[in-house]
């Protein structure tokens, strides 16, 4: 625990120096948020969380521990067919109920290492922080609510309930403009002394496991840019990622929210269309840009107006 406090303190000092203009609340909020991110990899925990969107909800069991010199982690769906993802350091396997299930399911191909360092400056461009000192009980643990209040209408708000003792994330709400909860993740049970063993991360008997191989993505020059972006949003990748022969993908983030942009040639100009699912917005338009007609699709956890404005401000770079 002393070690954890040192980490939190050093993160606090580091972030405070890097964001000299931040208010006291912002500095404390950033430090707590950074500590939350760290807690996912340095703590041992075992718990069940519920993910809800609208009237639908699903529960997942998560386990994480440092056993020997290795980091073990697993996630299992409790409501569906009990598909499980197990990670041991950089090795990830996906466990299916049987081989036929594995052959029909779309393979999981998420990045094996999902953590990235928080970018305090970007976050402060888009959000102000407010930490409530009022203690609330989440999953039987005392928690403090950290609010990320959007500074404009181009992003959603976030509320994180952090464990008062170790800053672990116990609950996360994504809030719409009127404070409506669009997405929620909440632990219903959590233990930070789970006494995990290696055998806890061995696939169950009778299941079928498939090793996930992270394929190095093909990249290409990013030939486009946005004439307008919400404050704090910037490309995560310097180049564009090639998905197939026709489609390139750009990824942007403000430090906590991601926006994906897909670009591909098409033959006809089509007007803007949009769909919203919880906090996720999908917008699309086909536009004539220079000599080409391009279909632009944006997927992100941002309001519809952000997607629309970004689509209309997309333009080819004049110089690379």
């Amino acid at each position, binding site marked *: 625990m002393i070690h954890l406090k040192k980490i939190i303190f050093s993160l606090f000092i580091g972030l405070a120096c890097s964001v000299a203009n931040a208010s006291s609340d912002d500095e404390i909020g950033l430090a707590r948020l950074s500590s939350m*991110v760290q807690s*996912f990899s340095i703590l041992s925990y075992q718990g069940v*969380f519920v*993910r*809800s969107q*609208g*009237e*639908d909800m*699903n529960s*997942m069991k*998560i386990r*994480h521990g440092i056993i020997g010199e290795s980091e073990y*982690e*697993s*996630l299992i*769906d409790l*409501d*569906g067919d009990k*598909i499980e*993802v197990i990670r041991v350091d950089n090795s990830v396997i*996906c466990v299916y109920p049987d081989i036929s299930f594995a052959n*029909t*399911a*779309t*393979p*999981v*191909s*998420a*990045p094996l*290492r*999902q*953590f*990235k360092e928080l970018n305090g400056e970007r976050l402060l461009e888009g959000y102000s922080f407010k930490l409530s000192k009022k203690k609330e009980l989440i999953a039987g643990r005392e928690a403090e609510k950290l609010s990320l209040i959007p500074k404009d209408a181009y992003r959603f708000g976030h509320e994180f309930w952090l464990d008062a003792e170790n800053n672990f*994330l116990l609950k996360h709400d994504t809030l719409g403009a009127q404070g409506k909860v669009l*997405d929620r*993740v909440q632990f219903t049970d959590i233990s930070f002394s789970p006494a995990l063993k290696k055998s806890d991360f061995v696939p169950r008997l009778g299941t079928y496991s498939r090793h996930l191989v992270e394929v190095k993505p093909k990249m290409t020059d990013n030939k486009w840019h946005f004439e307008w972006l919400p404050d704090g949003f910037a490309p*995560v990748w310097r180049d564009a990622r090639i*998905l197939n022969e026709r489609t390139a*993908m750009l990824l942007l*983030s403000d*430090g*906590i*929210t*991601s926006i*994906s942009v*897909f670009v591909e040639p098409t033959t006809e100009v*089509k*007007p*803007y*269309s*949009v*769909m919203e*699912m*919880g906090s*996720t917005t*999908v917008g699309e338009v086909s536009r004539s840009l220079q000599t080409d007609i391009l279909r632009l699709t944006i*997927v*992100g*956890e941002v309001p*519809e107006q952000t997607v629309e404005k970004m689509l209309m401000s997309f333009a080819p770079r004049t110089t690379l």
Partner: protein
Amino acid sequence: MNTSEETLQNERIALSLSDLVDDRLSTEDLDFLLELDAKDLDAKLNAYAITKQVMGNATEARLNMAEFDLLHRVRVGIEDIVPDAVDTVTDETFEGNVTHRDTNVVNLMQQKILADAKLDNDNASEKKGNLISMKSFALAASVAFVALLGGQLFLSQDAGFSSANLDTLAVASVDQTDDILASPQDIKALSLDVHNERLQSYLRQHTEQATMATGQGMIPMARVVSFSLEDEQ
């Protein structure tokens, strides 16, 4: 006109119609046919006018305009001479008489109607664009999105055109067909499948890559796992 004159005229009509079909119709015979047609048209219009005058506005009389169509009359004439020769012409010419043997035409019609309807909708809703494809995608996306992400879909209400309208249009266009290989729903689904797959692929890519930026351990992976689960179902 006595019986022999009538017979002669009928024979000439038959020969003229046959020449018309064979593309050997002389100018004289063409004038003859048109004159007959005009006489017949006059007679029917006169009869219609008298009928309408008698019945006044109380009853709405309807004419079968097809009977006034020269092509229709040619078809009837040929049918009198060579009954079996007509079907081919019918199926390829008259949309209103589409039979089960010509599903390709039906399909083309449906596709055109769907395309036209979609184009109209595109033009009508410049601001929000059309949500026909997105709505279809929403249904398909529910496959990928509902379970773990939860799947409450909020479609914009101002699209002004729904897939139900589209269905009605398509059904109305083919209501005389008995045995259509592909239903309007099937065609719509087929035409949008590629679109849906593409959008779902983008949604998946976004979800997978976004896990990098959240800093919440494996929690965001719940979304990715959900894609696999729902794809299987």
